[in-house]
Structures are given as structure tokens and as C-alpha cells.
């Protein structure tokens, strides 16, 4: 009668231990991709945030609204080229004083950039923008040739 010899445990396949190490690897991956705090200082957060926008159109104008909380007017840069509107800026973190300590930092700081294709060509010289309650509102008058024209066609 054969006796099964005793074996050390490391030879036995332990599926749960393997799953645990897989889970650890997954956690590391998520920590990296979700941009935890150290990544900001490494500059890897750049381009991670861009403002939400609404685009409206009327007969004469195009209106764009963008949510950009906590900015200074001077730090927002708007440019128009043909039918492309670009909103750029940098959200600056207030310099932390020594007696303050951060408990939670979820707000985004750094530079952002958003380019939009407008529904029609606009007159770059007549673009107007305002910033209020954290909302940037841009009114872009359409070019004369882009406006809808009514042509009367006589039907014989």
C-alpha cells in the first residue's frame, strides 16, 4: 500500500492567492490611470480636464457656453479660426499658506484646452465673451455669406 508523502504547501496550486495578486496589479493600474495626487505634481494631469459646453445657433449668431469654475477673466484665452473655436486657460491653485492643511483635493488645477467646430463660419472680429458665475458665454456673429438666404423662385 502506497503512502502519499507529505508535501510542503507551496507546491499546491492556490487559486485565491493568485487572484489576490491579480487584484493588487489591477489596483495599481487604476491608481495610475485615475490620476491620484502624485500624478499632478509629475505634470501627468495635463489635459485631463476640459470644460463642459453648450452650443446654440440662431439665424445671425452662434452662442457657446462653457462651465469653467473659479477662474480669473484674464486667465481665459479664446481664439477663433475659420469655424473652429478654441478655449484655453490655466486654473491656478491658490498658494497654500502654512497653517492650512488639505483634507481633500478634487478640484482640477492646471492648463486646459478645448476646441469646437462651430455650425457655421463666424466673423472673428465681432466675437464677444463674458464670464459670470463660473460660466463663460461667447457670442459669435455669423459671416454674411454663411447666413441663410431666401431666394424667391418663380414657378412657371
Amino acid at each position, binding site marked *: 500500500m502506497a503512502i502519499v508523502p507529505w508535501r510542503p504547501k507551496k507546491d499546491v496550486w492556490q487559486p485565491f492567492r493568485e487572484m489576490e495578486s491579480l487584484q493588487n496589479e489591477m489596483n495599481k493600474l487604476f491608481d495610475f490611470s485615475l490620476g491620484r495626487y502624485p500624478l499632478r505634481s509629475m505634470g501627468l494631469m495635463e489635459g485631463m480636464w476640459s470644460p*463642459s459646453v*453648450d452650443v*446654440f445657433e440662431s*439665424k445671425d449668431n452662434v452662442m457657446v457656453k462653457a462651465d469653467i469654475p473659479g477662474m480669473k477673466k484674464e486667465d481665459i484665452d479664446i481664439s477663433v479660426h475659420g469655424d473652429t473655436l478654441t478655449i484655453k486657460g490655466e486654473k491656478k491653485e491658490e498658494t497654500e499658506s502654512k497653517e492650512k492643511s488639505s483634507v481633500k483635493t478634487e478640484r482640477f488645477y492646471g492648463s486646459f484646452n478645448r476646441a469646437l467646430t462651430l*455650425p457655421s463660419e463666424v466673423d472673428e472680429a465681432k466675437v464677444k465673451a463674458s464670464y459670470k458665475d*463660473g*460660466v463663460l458665454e461667447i457670442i459669435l456673429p455669423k459671416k454674411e455669406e454663411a447666413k441663410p438666404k431666401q431666394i424667391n423662385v418663380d414657378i412657371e
Partner: protein
Amino acid sequence: MANGENTPRVIAPSVNIQETEKEVVIEAEMTGLKKEDVSLDVKGDELTIKGVKRDCEVPKGYTAIYRERCPFEYSRTFILGDETKRDGIKAKHENGILKVTIPKSEKAQPKRIEITD
């Protein structure tokens, strides 16, 4: 249509929380609101900030081409704990940021003990 276009989606605003010796400061990103659209409620141990975005209507004479900003309702609840006071909470809404200042209770403030010979 329970989740139709006009039912606002409730989202938790992004916050920064900072602490000094005397107070706790919460800064929440809530854009497109007027001061009167923001509410702050303290109930027992919970502080809830809420806000309804008002500028969601399509401007007169315009048609919507593309929308990402609306309709939204902001809501987030914080647990105050016994280290903060319930009265003396101050709030300010500026540039789309709601800033709430909560004073700390006396027992949470550090005490310096002098060393005598």
C-alpha cells in the same frame, strides 16, 4: 419617461476641503447658479449643499446644437462630527465656487501647554 430630458441629473460637485486650527473650509464647484439657487442645510450631524442650475433654458431665438452642461442638480452631504460647531457656518458663492466656512469647536482646537521648571 422618468429620465427624460427635463429631469435634472443629480451630481456631486467636486470639492476641496482645507483645515486650519480654527476652521474647516469646503470649496465646491457649482457653476451656472445664482446665489439664491444654492441651499445649505444642517440636520443633526449632516451638512448638505444643494444647487439647481438655472441657465439651462435655450436662449430666445436660438436652437440647441450640442449640450453637455444641463440639466444638472448639485447635491452633496458632509458629516460634521463633534469637532465642528453647528452655528457660525458661513457661505459665499463666487465665480461658480461655493465656499463654506465651518468653525471648529473649542475642544478640537489645539491647546499649548507651557512647560514650567
